């Protein structure tokens, strides 16, 4: 039986450029499993020392918020200025606050 040529599943790639900073999404690639996804990611995305750590996540496992709902979804944060330190008045001369 002829199996369908899938060109392998899609993986999203995250690279940490230096110690102490977060992993950042850099793109995606195809690989049959996580191990090869990491190896391929090394060859595709770190040919010039761009990273010291790689995370791979199969694309189908990523869920995302939907752009159409941006307004209502993030709206609750809009009217809560008291969450920022600049909201509060501090008398002149008071330090370390």
């Amino acid at each position, binding site marked *: 039986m002829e199996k369908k040529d*899938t*060109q392998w599943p899609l993986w999203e790639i995250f690279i940490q450029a230096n110690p102490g900073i977060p992993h950042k999404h850099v793109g995606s*690639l195809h690989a049959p499993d996580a191990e090869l996804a990491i190896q391929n990611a090394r060859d595709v995305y770190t040919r010039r020392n761009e990273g010291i750590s790689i995370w791979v996540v199969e694309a189908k496992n990523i869920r995302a918020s939907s752009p159409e709902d941006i307004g209502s979804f993030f709206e609750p944060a809009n009217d809560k200025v008291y969450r920022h330190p600049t909201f509060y008045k501090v008398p002149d001369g008071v330090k370390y606050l």
Partner: protein
Amino acid sequence: MVKDEKKLLAEFQAKIDKGVKIEPKDWMPEHYRKQLIRMMSQHAHSEIVGMLPEGNWITRAPSLRRKAILLAKVQDEAGHGMYLYSAAETLGIDRTEMLEQLHTGKAKYSSIFNYPTLTWADIGAIGWLVDGAAIMNQTALAKGSYGPYSRAMVRICKEESFHNRQGYEIMCSLAFGTPEQKAMAQDALNRWWWPAIMMLGPSDDNSPNSAELMSWKVKMESNDSIRQRFIDRTVPQGDHIGLTFPDPLLKFNKETGHYEHGPINWEEFFNVVKGNGPCNKARLKARVDADKDGKWVREAAEAYAMKHTEKETLAA
């Protein structure tokens, strides 16, 4: 419904005008999506097919240094193809489909790669001229409106500048070498100059539906304007190493600050695009064979991955 679409389109345009990138899940006009898929897949195919003319010289590079450089360059081209295929996939087409379009001749790739690399000097000319022209085009595209494409382009541009320099370095070595070496460099320039100029695409009066694509920032600059910048920057580089451009009408216009060039043979360009260039058939065959010959590897890796998942599931 119609009104809705109008409103969405207005919002879409406003975002682009403000310089906000369009991301994969955002609403976009169907024509925008289609046009980007066409451009990005064509671009990806060009990177992949572009490995062939240069790969032809890896085993015959004149020194270990040159061989290591050429290997790294060709590997970069593969990487660029991968960035672009995955960026195109964010628009909802999958790679299998894009490859299918390439292999059946439905999708195009850059006309330039249908010319043969006859001597080592051609590797110099490709890096200098072909990558030089591509950089002009790609720095413009990096400012485009579609996020994944523009980000891929930024990466690619960074990597391309070494390609451009290594090519010019090869041309320098030959141009300052023996008379035979200089003749070889000159011959390569003679053969690659016009195709390099043409690869930036048809002239503006012959390039359909550019206005809409410009307003959507899919296309950032007209072909002729990119071509002019390429010529203005490249001609002094050739003059500097004593090579002559194969265009008797090429001359600097002091008033405009630009070079003027002779007429471009568009008949040749369209003929190559249609599939009648010197290497079209060989290039396509090499890609189709590579896909066919690699199929068992893809299947084996997939079977291995499947077996492991089953084991893990059983163990759990």
